[in-house]
């Protein structure tokens, strides 16, 4: 058994980051359950939530395995964290999801615009991650890429339908794009972690995903007769910090709802 290397620590942190994105958005979408505008859409949103939850479970389980398997000196660690420990027993500052996914559902247009922005990013990411030197991350990406392709299609279809629909639906989805756009910049901010992992052939340099994302999302917005806001250097407000555990005020409330059962009744099972 080899010792835990700096790379292992990085891979674990990276898996948590990707897992947190999926977990937080799954929780947000679950809030729509029984409240979507139509029964068919209710099931569609629940399906997307469950796809994301499955990805989150695989990623958080893997992160826990890495940190648990090899402590300093190659000694198996006591008390390694399970997927549940990671999901339910971390505080807000320990979550490293992007701020986009924690934004409230708002109206249906906001929910769909958020989904389009995130899923288009996730699709570009997973398409590259399938070639990762890390077999587990590559496996999660290979499974996820098919799921996410559908999420993008579904959300994109709705954004076009709303944008190119009635005056009211156009007004709402235009407002949703304007509201959420600033949070998309964070998706493409590279940091030391992604830099090291991209160098090792394990992770993806997120800044490289921007071109594919912009092209995809820009195409959808244009079809939806919506204006594509400025991107990159010309953009205005660029909130960020999710990857460092700095979040908007919304995440705390989301975690309170998601975690309270497990914290009140540790180890509770169905």
């Amino acid at each position, binding site marked *: 058994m080899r010792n835990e290397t700096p790379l292992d620590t990085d891979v674990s942190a990276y898996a948590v980051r990707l897992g947190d994105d999926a977990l937080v958005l799954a929780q947000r979408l679950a809030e729509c359950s029984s409240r979507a505008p*139509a029964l*068919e859409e209710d099931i569609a949103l629940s399906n997307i939530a469950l796809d994301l939850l499955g990805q989150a479970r695989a990623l958080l389980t893997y992160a826990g395995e890495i940190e648990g398997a090899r402590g300093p000196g190659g000694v198996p660690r006591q008390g390694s964290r399970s997927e549940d420990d990671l999901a339910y027993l971390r505080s807000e500052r320990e979550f490293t999801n992007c701020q986009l996914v924690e934004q409230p559902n708002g109206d249906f247009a906001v929910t769909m615009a958020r989904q389009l922005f995130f899923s288009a990013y996730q699709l570009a990411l997973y398409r590259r991650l399938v070639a990762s030197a890390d077999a587990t991350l590559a496996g999660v990406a290979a499974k996820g890429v098919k799921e996410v392709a559908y999420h993008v299609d579904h959300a994109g279809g709705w954004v076009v339908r709303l944008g190119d629909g009635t005056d009211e639906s156009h007004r709402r989805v235009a407002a949703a794009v304007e509201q959420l756009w600033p949070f998309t910049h964070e998706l493409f901010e590279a940091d030391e972690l992604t830099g090291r992992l991209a160098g090792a052939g394990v992770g993806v340099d997120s800044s490289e995903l921007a071109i594919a994302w912009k092209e995809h999302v820009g195409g959808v917005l244009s079809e939806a007769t919506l204006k594509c806001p400025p991107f990159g250097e010309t953009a205005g407000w660029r909130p960020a910090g999710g990857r460092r555990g700095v979040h908007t005020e919304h995440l705390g409330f989301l975690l309170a709802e998601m975690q309270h059962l497990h914290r009140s009744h540790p180890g509770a099972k169905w």
Partner: protein
Amino acid sequence: MSAGREWPLWEVFVRAKRGLSHNHVGSLHAPDARTALGNARDVYTRRQEGVSIWVVPAAAITASSPDEKDPFFEPAADKVYRHPTFYEVPEGAEHL
């Protein structure tokens, strides 16, 4: 949503696997064919029920009426010779 602006109804047919025919599994509401297909995927195939889906506008289906039941179906009732099992298989033709 007001009653007058309900999405149209679609009938959904799913093929469980290659070689089988599409079977009617239910119906759903959707604003257009593409969305109906997506909704059918979400509502009717999330437990791996199918490999192919058809959606058909319910309005495009012409159905027999319960009032026509007797003239439509009754005459077939006493014609057992239309079933292959009515006939005895001749000797020497075991694998018919």
